């Protein structure tokens, strides 16, 4: 469904992505682990097209999308949430979701029809608001809701584009354990044919939701396999837990 082939990217002298090749099957749920600065977000930026790789290829649903701009990839079913909230702050929660749903349903450039009141848009908004527990906050402005709610909305907006592949960049970063559990429930309620790629620091959650795990260290894939194998891997312990304990 989503595949990279020998993806490379460097910022000056630092190689942030070193010949990364990963392959996700349809419906696969993969977690990316790795210490701070390992190049996880940079990999996402290349996958969605916000950053151009120096070399290598990215394939989405069998098509080479390496040269396509961000919007074109999204329209082909790729969606992402950001590590640092990237929301429409001045608008309400409902309007945030609606803008995403409007593009997904093709009403975003209509000059006569109000996309916000379209039944197909409203249906997506209701569905996603239920999925990410935003129903009570629909009419609140983003600037007025708590950080935790914004974090939920960050994932909600990405979901409202109706993606085939969803990339989530540390969706539970900075929120309490209770919300982490809520996020867990959300993942369990997502359709099984949705392909997920999640950057996550919480190891327990990672092992719990992942079908497969990729560990990045200094831009390099140092582990790629089943969670059980990862748990026992001394390499992973050394790299990931080591730096984790240092922190």
């Amino acid at each position, binding site marked *: 469904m989503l595949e990279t082939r020998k993806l490379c990217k460097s910022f000056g002298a630092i190689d942030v992505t070193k010949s990364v090749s990963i392959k996700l099957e349809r419906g696969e749920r993969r977690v990316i682990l790795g210490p701070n600065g390992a190049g996880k977000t940079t990999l996402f930026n290349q996958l969605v097209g916000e950053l151009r790789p120096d070399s290598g290829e990215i394939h989405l649903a069998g098509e080479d999308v390496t040269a396509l701009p961000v919007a074109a990839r999204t329209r082909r079913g790729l969606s992402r949430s950001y590590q640092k909230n*990237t929301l429409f702050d001045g608008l309400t929660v409902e*309007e945030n979701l609606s*803008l995403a749903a*409007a*593009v997904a349903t093709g009403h*975003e450039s209509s*000059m006569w*029809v109000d996309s916000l009141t379209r039944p197909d848009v409203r249906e997506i908004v209701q569905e996603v608001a239920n999925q990410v527990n935003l129903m009570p*906050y629909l009419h609140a402005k983003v600037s007025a*809701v708590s950080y935790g709610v914004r974090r939920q909305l960050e994932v909600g907006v990405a979901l409202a584009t109706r993606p085939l592949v969803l990339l989530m960049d540390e969706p539970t970063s900075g929120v309490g354990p209770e919300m982490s559990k809520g996020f867990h429930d959300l993942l369990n309620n997502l359709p099984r044919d949705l392909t997920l790629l999640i950057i996550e620091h919480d190891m327990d959650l990672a092992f719990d939701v992942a079908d497969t795990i990729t560990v990045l260290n200094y831009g390099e894939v140092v582990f790629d396999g089943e969670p059980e194998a990862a748990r026992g891997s001394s390499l992973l312990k050394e790299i990931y837990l080591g730096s984790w304990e240092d922190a």
Partner: protein
Amino acid sequence: MFRHTPFRYATLALLAALAVLYTLNAEYFGLELVAEIAVLAILVLALDMVAGFGGMVSLCHGALMGIGAYAYALLTTAGGLTAPVGMLGAIAITAAFAWVIGAICSRSHGIYFIMATLAMGQMAYSYVFEAPIFGGDDGLSGISRLDLSLIGLDLNDGRSFAFFCLVMLGLAYGFSALVLSSGLGRSLSGVMHSEQRMRALGACVWRVKADMFGVSGGIAGLAGVLAAQHVMFVSPGLLAWTVSGEALVVVILGGLGTLVGPLVGAVAFIMLKHEISDMTSYWHLVVGLILIAVVMSGANGIFGWIESQVERWRPRRAAMTDEEIRKREVLSDA
């Protein structure tokens, strides 16, 4: 995002009633004022659409109005077209120019966008000034007004023309409101708040900007057509960047991003200009001081200020904070 509220509807109804009453009773000079206000109001509506709802602060809307005026003049004199066809043609031509400007400038933001549009406007200005077909410094004369004798109206009569301008203003307002409440208008709002996210959602950001700039340009073109019909003469001064600057002042004076506010701003601006220029030739100074006072007060222009005062007296439901929501939930649980 653009929304009509009961208070906005009430303001519109009040403005419309005042305009009709005034126009029914005004003498020659008053009717000139009405036409002048209507033309300015249409121009600032166009500007508010892109500046207030898309963050595209344009300094070429004066030039767009000028393009509309010249296009109408040329199409109906040298081009030999009838006035209605000339009007539609001029609006379409201006919209096309604006779309191209919007597309070219869509990549720049903030001060760079302002400078880019200023440069576009100045290019249009100097071209019109130099090219012989536009009559240079002398401009073009012999422009006729729309012929409405079919429905028994003579637009060469000041009162009829003033009413005609008001009707056009009403149409322009309705059209602006419609487009701002459309999918395109909503997307523009998203682009203003976060271009990055809008792109990540799959929207074509430059198209959203260019399309709305084109619509806005068409409306500015209508203002130009009416300006040309009003004085039956066009000169390069219409395209001067100071016209754009003045339009921006009016939008800010009235209330950026409210659509109703700029109408209030246009009335206030023209009225002030005429009242104060009777007393002193330094009327610009007075308008400048008022603008500074409005900006310093922190309110969003005259209309924005009134609206915020009205809001205070009404319990707000739409903009509940997280805390308020939680409190409500606790209450309903109990």
